[in-house]
């Protein structure tokens, strides 16, 4: 199995805004998670080591069932590891969750049908006890970030799937957590909408300098977005390769035709294939 210590990574080219922060934002050490099921134990994660630094955009890619969602859920303290250690912002995942260190975007938008778009974005803020005027300001701000200004008073069913997904991203952004965890947020959308949202996501990431964990099945999407691509393979779920992207932070859509892009994509594909082979 490939060792995946990424070490204190070199903040690459343009994303060096926080060059002084050396401690990783998320750090997994020898992380394992075994689900006990009726058909025996399922090793969703085995001996996973990974450091994610401030400002990183990390994609998780791998075949279905390789533990991507599980890994993200462990970071979010929605799942407890059976072995090993995970720290988020230097504290345990549970403490980080209680301190509302991250926003989490689920695969389905999961907007409350009985709340307007504005009401949905307001929801975490209400829970956190933010004042009414701050709520208003935050709603306005994040709706602009995801280009949904003017839709505050609409109900979710009045929006398209892509718009709902953007609204759910806006909701995860509303309380200004430094970490954004996204589990295949664009999985159900068509290519064109996806390209568009990818562009917007990069723009948002550049503006907010958040640390982003992003699960995807698409190699081009992973390469286009990430500063670091984590390739995983199943049974047991593990990391087989960690690829540091050499692409600049400024990424127009047509960068996908550049030789650099294609080379990284190749490496990802090789990594995926390798993981598949030692599985057989």
């Amino acid at each position, binding site marked *: 199995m490939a060792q995946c210590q990424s070490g204190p990574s070199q903040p690459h080219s343009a994303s060096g805004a926080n060059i002084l922060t050396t401690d990783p934002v998320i750090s997994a050490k020898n992380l394992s998670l075994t689900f006990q099921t009726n058909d025996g134990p399922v090793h969703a994660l085995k001996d996973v080591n990974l450091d994610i630094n401030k400002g990183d955009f990390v994609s998780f890619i791998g075949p279905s069932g390789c533990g991507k969602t599980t890994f993200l*859920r462990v970071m979010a303290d*929605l799942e407890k590891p059976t072995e090993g250690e995970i720290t988020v912002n230097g504290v345990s995942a549970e403490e980080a969750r209680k301190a509302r260190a991250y926003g989490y975007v689920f695969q389905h938008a999961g907007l409350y049908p009985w709340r307007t778009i504005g009401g949905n974005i307001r929801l975490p803020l209400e829970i956190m006890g933010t004042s009414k005027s701050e709520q208003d300001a935050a709603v306005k701000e994040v709706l602009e970030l995801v280009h949904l200004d003017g839709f505050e008073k609409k109900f979710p069913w009045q929006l398209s799937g892509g718009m709902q997904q953007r609204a759910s991203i806006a909701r995860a952004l509303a309380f200004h957590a430094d970490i954004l965890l996204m589990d295949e947020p664009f999985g159900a959308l068509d290519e064109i909408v996806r390209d568009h949202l990818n562009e917007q996501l990069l723009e948002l990431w550049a503006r907010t300098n958040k640390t982003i964990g992003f699960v995807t099945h698409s190699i081009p999407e992973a390469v286009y977005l990430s500063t670091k691509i984590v390739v995983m393979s199943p049974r047991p779920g593990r990391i087989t390769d960690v690829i540091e992207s050499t692409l600049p932070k400024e990424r127009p859509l047509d960068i996908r035709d550049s030789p650099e892009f294609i080379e990284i994509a190749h490496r990802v594909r090789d990594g995926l294939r390798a993981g598949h082979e030692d599985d057989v």
Partner: protein
Amino acid sequence: MMGKFWYKIGPIIVVVIAIFVLWYAAAVGLNTAWAKDKAKRAGVELTTSEIIKDTMSQKKPKLPAPHQVGAEIWKTTVEKKVTSKRSLIYHSSVTLSSTLLGFVMGTSLGIALAVGIVYNRTMDMSVMPWVIASQTIPILAIAPMIIVVLNAVGISGLLPKAVISMYLSFFPVVVGMVKGLRSPDHMQLDQMKTWSASGSQQFWKLRLPSSMPYLFTSLKIAMAAALVGAIIGELPTGAVAGLGARLLAGSYYGQTIQIWSALIMAAALAASLVGIIGMIQAVVLKRMGMVQ
């Protein structure tokens, strides 16, 4: 506009006409024997049209004709003072008050039990079997006991009847609300967790709003059940007042017209109460954006 109106109302009118036709036919069929009997004893021969005419104007028919019931209802509502012991409005209001009180009590009990069942493991394991068992006991058997027991401790009047209403109406609310409060999926609950929401925030902001469609459906059934409970509760009280009392008194003296007019009143009452809940449901769910 007109077309849409008829599209909605048309089928209802057809059904109502069909009911009336069947009702008249049944009245003729059931009352003919008595009409012939009377004629035979009087020693006269009746033509078919005379027999049919007679079946619709008997004093104590087996099945009164619709217009007889209509006339009786008119007489006992519009033409009687509301305070009169013979006014159906008076009796309906007696039944209505215990129905409403029982409905409120039953709904509160139902919601409280549902919250307990959803939030408390012990209650989850233990309460539901008892709730179901309570509904397998025939209400007619325990209604008199409830009245007697409550009378013995000095409680009489409205409350014992309302207790029987409550007994019948809490059940659909418990069942519906347990389902409703559990309707949020794993993802929605996880979402709450990522925001580190407290138990009560989870209840008020997620579980309760999610349960609204279930609640209203339950409330409609509960309201109908509460009315049945109130009528049953009036039977053993010596038939002093209420629609149940009219039914009982009517059957003592074979006053079928009185029985049927009380029945029709009860049905109309149930329909309007359920209709009111339906209207509230429409408004609330619309404002919640849950109907499109």
